[in-house]
């Protein structure tokens, strides 16, 4: 079970809702993923096209917890404004703090992320900051009292997978709150790897929405995350430099 603040989730997959080829595909992908937490962005309505379908309005909101992000914010103050707008919907009390510090890499701004997290905690939000894989920054966020930390595997949408497992493992070992590996996941192997490192969950979007068959990939990610978690809980064998025979050395037929 994944526990974030006072909420408990069976699924350890958090799924983004951006860039699917169609609503039908998206709905099927969400269903088969068994994700219980869905991320959204907060934007101006296109009021001159108000009849456009909105995925959120087609969802059974009893079944899902919404995790709005503050994407688009470049400062803590902008992130707080977006978070408050999201909360005013009455549909959510969690927020993914996302304050981007560089347009090319979309890497988070560590100073503004820390400030935004502090301000949002003061406002009573359940705060899940998207952060880099910096071990000390993660510790500072945990010390602030955030409810989960979400270090990136690699840059958003890059699909490069886990480029710094060493740092992620240290973040996981040091954290007293759930660690959700967010951003950069490309394939099921990446998701399984994150879970084998001991992550409490994985947040991904493009890896599913941009896949050749998003529905099959959503299913694959669900299985990969379950497999990785089971493997972590089971405790893997230590790595050795040389072979160790699986068959007995006794009773050899000579």
């Amino acid at each position: 079970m994944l526990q974030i603040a006072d909420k408990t989730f069976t699924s350890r997959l958090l799924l983004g809702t951006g860039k699917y080829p169609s609503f039908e595909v998206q709905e099927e992908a969400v269903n088969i993923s068994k994700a219980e937490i869905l991320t959204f962005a907060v934007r101006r309505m296109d009021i001159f096209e108000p009849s456009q379908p909105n995925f959120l309005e087609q969802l059974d909101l009893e079944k899902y917890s919404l995790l709005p992000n503050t994407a688009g914010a470049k400062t803590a103050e902008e992130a707080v404004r977006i978070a408050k707008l999201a909360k005013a919907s009455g549909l959510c009390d969690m927020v993914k703090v996302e304050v981007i510090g560089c347009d090319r890499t979309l890497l988070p701004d560590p100073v503004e992320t820390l400030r935004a997290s502090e301000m949002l905690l003061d406002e009573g939000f359940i705060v899940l900051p998207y952060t880099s894989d910096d071990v000390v920054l993660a510790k500072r966020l945990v010390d602030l009292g955030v409810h989960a930390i979400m270090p990136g595997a690699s840059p958003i949408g890059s699909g490069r997978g886990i480029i710094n497992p060493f740092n992620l493992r240290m973040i996981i070992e040091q954290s007293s709150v759930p660690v959700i590996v967010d951003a950069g996941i490309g394939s099921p192997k990446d998701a399984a790897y994150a879970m084998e490192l001991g992550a409490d969950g994985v947040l991904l979007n493009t890896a599913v929405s941009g896949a050749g068959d998003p529905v099959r990939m959503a299913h694959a990610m669900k299985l990969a995350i379950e497999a990785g978690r089971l493997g972590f809980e089971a405790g893997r064998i230590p790595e050795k430099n040389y072979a160790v025979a699986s068959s007995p050395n006794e009773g050899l037929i000579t």
Partner: protein
Amino acid sequence: MNIQLNGRQQELSADIKTIAQLLASLSLEKRIVIVELNKEIINKTAYAERPIRNGDKVELIHFVGGG
């Protein structure tokens, strides 16, 4: 009356005096929409009374797909 609606100048007909009437005129009354008036988030329960005045800046916000 002229307001700034989602960043664009918008002329409103004379019978639109409240947020509720503005949302109805845009067929948004049943949609998931968050209203910000001059940077202040407006509680849903206040839509019917809260007046809109000439020069107001109104933002109509919703959730879209995102990661």
